[in-house]
């Protein structure tokens, strides 16, 4: 039944990404991972916002909710909460998730909504042609930041850890083996899983190139304790070079859906349920007293 290959998850449409764009690598690895995990397209909803990264769901077989710029996370949260039987996977960009969508990033972590977030972090606004993003390094010159970016770069990992996110990871797809492993664990994780992905934007960011990412990342040591928040935070502060891997994971915390009264007796999707007319009658009657 679920014997799909990575290619089966490809869509026939031509991709509008630039040749060499890092989003291709995520597209490939993600398809491989879900194929290996024996997932089926009709059990997954791919959610995104707007941006080059956010086009990914257009090119992968599954249900798709390609929403507004910055708003992928509320959409994903609501889809999961309306039908917990669906696997909900978000792919979007650094601008979308950490810029316009910053408040939703915080709020969905607070909920521990059971969704997986793949954040394509190319440290630039790709689709709108190269303005600084929240993760752009200081000094990066762009058409808006003409004398270089001056904002403190947003560190998605430290913030997610600070927020109490239950799965926090970073990968560099140049290290495809680790990337695959982390993707799998993120999808398997029950609760909010963040994977920040270092991808190159070959057209708009000439600083943070594939080569740069390669030279500036290293795998987290094997003895890193993923249950230790302070160790995770300490590692997440490192940036010369940047560690990759799973920084933090916690499995006990209930998810948003688990906390919903509606799912106390099972995860039957909302659409299958019907209004209990007797209860409604009773509720109305209660107002006669």
């Amino acid at each position: 039944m679920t014997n799909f290959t990575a290619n089966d998850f490809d869509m026939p449409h031509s991709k509008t990404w630039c040749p060499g764009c890092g989003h291709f690598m995520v597209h490939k690895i993600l398809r491989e991972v879900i194929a290996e995990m024996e997932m089926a397209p009709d059990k997954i909803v791919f959610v995104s916002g707007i941006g080059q990264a956010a086009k990914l769901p257009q090119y992968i077989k599954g249900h798709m909710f390609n929403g507004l710029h910055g708003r992928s996370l509320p959409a994903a949260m609501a889809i999961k909460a309306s039908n917990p039987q669906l696997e909900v996977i978000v792919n979007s960009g650094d601008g979308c998730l950490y810029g316009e969508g910053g408040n939703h990033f915080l709020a969905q972590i607070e909920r521990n909504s059971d969704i997986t977030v793949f954040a394509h972090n190319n440290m630039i606004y790709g689709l709108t042609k190269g303005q600084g993003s929240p993760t752009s390094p200081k000094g990066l010159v762009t058409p808006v930041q003409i004398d270089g970016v001056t904002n403190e770069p947003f560190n998605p990992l430290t913030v997610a850890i600070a927020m109490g996110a239950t799965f926090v990871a970073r990968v560099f797809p140049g290290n495809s083996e680790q990337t695959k492993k982390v993707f799998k664990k993120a999808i398997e994780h029950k609760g909010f899983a963040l994977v920040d992905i270092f991808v190159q934007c070959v057209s708009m960011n000439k600083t943070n190139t594939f080569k740069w990412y390669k030279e500036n990342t290293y795998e987290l040591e094997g003895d890193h304790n993923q249950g230790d928040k302070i160790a995770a935070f300490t590692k997440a502060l490192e940036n010369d070079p940047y560690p990759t891997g799973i920084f933090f994971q916690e499995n006990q915390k209930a998810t948003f859906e688990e906390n919903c009264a509606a799912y106390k007796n099972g995860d039957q999707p909302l659409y299958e349920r019907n209004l209990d007319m007797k209860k409604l009658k009773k509720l109305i009657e209660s107002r006669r007293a």
Partner: protein
Amino acid sequence: MKDISIVIAGEAGQGVQTVEEILVGVLKISGYHICATKEYESRVRGGSNSTQIRVSDHQITAFVDRIDLLIPFNVDAYNHSKNRLSSSSKLITDPANEIDITELEKSQIIEVKLQEIAKEIGNPIYANTIIAGIIIGLFSADKEAAGKLLDSKFNKKGESVVNSNIEAFNSGFAIGEKITGSGDFKHDLTPDKNVKNDILVNGAQAVGLGAIAGGCNFISAYPMSPSTAVLQFLATNSNDFEIIIDQAEDEIAALNKTVAAWYAGARALASTSGGGFALMTEALSLAGIMESPAVLHIAQRPGPATGLPTRTAQEDLNLVLYAGHGEFQRIIFAPGTTEQAFYLTQKAFNIADQYQIPVFVLTDQDFVDRYNNIPELDITEIKIEKHYVKTEADYQRFKLTDNGLSPRGIPGYGTGLVRVDSDEHDEQGHITEDMDYIRPEMVKKRFHKRFELIEKIAELPTWYGPKSPKLAIICWGSTLPAIQEAVDNSNREDIAIIHFHQLYPLPANIKEFIEKNNPEKMISIEANASGQLANLLKVYADISIPKESLHLRYSGKPFSVEDITEIIEQEAK
């Protein structure tokens, strides 16, 4: 037709609300029709708030300026309300309040040592229950029912609290009966047995019940007066009706979640006020391009910006009508009665699902907070119409069809993939730049064809009163009861009311409908500064109401029956 207008005034947190709850419940059970209207400041303690409870022998649903009986909790409360007193008003007051009363004759003032009695019972707080007792005593209303209500209200706090409250109530009741007995306060209302069994709801509860009756099982909302009551009503009932409750991080999230929830098969409601809705504008447009159902309840209050958060207005019709960039359709309801609020909200879910567009229920603070008794909310005819389809493998979410509706699948139901997109897209939902065919067809579907469909089911306004009237009063939403009562009071047979409970779209025959009824003159009464309904009628119905026939109020106060009477006297001499 008779009624007594009782006003209880005091600081926020002083117990006005407690008195109201007891009164309204007990008087109804005793067979009196009631209508309660609140007005309050944007604060939690202090200030000057008041509740008007009208007690009557026939159904009443409007607010009057007139006060027959005023019970102020302190000097400020008295001053806050005194300009509504007349020579036939009565005042019950505690001499301890030391109110300097120059407006009333001695004979109008009834002194009761509330504080003293309350302290005797054990706590000044019992003054509230004493007041409730007095009023219920004035009407010789159902003492037993009162006991039950007090019990259920206070039993969480322990038996002694219940008992003290009952004691307080009883002493108040005795005082009330004595006052009536002495002739200091007269009324000749005869209780109506049928009322006993009536339903008591305010506008917010009617919307909430309508939502549940519409199958609502998801709400994501950010608290905002005066809409919060609907969120809280659904939360209170969330266990029984398996409703997902999400207090959203902001209103943007709330509507994005609403749209996504519908996508995934939920029946979701967004509920907010004008300022919160302003933030939903982009997501509304998302519903537009995704051809997503959505139900939105907007409880208006005076703006701009934070404005007067706890007051009332009808200022956001234009916003609701035109919110969202790009062009797509929507339906706007504006109930005039609690019954309408219930049925229209219920219906909103079905037609949102059927026509795959946002449907609005537009209310306001006056409406959501106003209580009255109604005989029935009949659910026997009510159906939850689920309009989504089971998908096949070749399913296309945005299929171009003859009737302009693309069957809506949901992920997980059937074998098809449901792919939706905020970009312009082809039938599959895939992003497109085809401007020669796909784009115009999709616009036609979303805008022109959808309009044809929803215009067909558009409901005519309700015409109250005679044909060929000398004066027809155009109005919408919450102002209906005051206008109806004023017209009734006028005893004139030549005044009609045209109440729009559906504002958009208007039915194709709207102009004909009105012209057929042949009003000599039309005026529009609206709680805004620009005559938003009048403008809407101009654009969409070719009906022109001249500027001087607009009766606009933008003070934040609701129209009272007297306000309308004044307008009628001026317009229909």
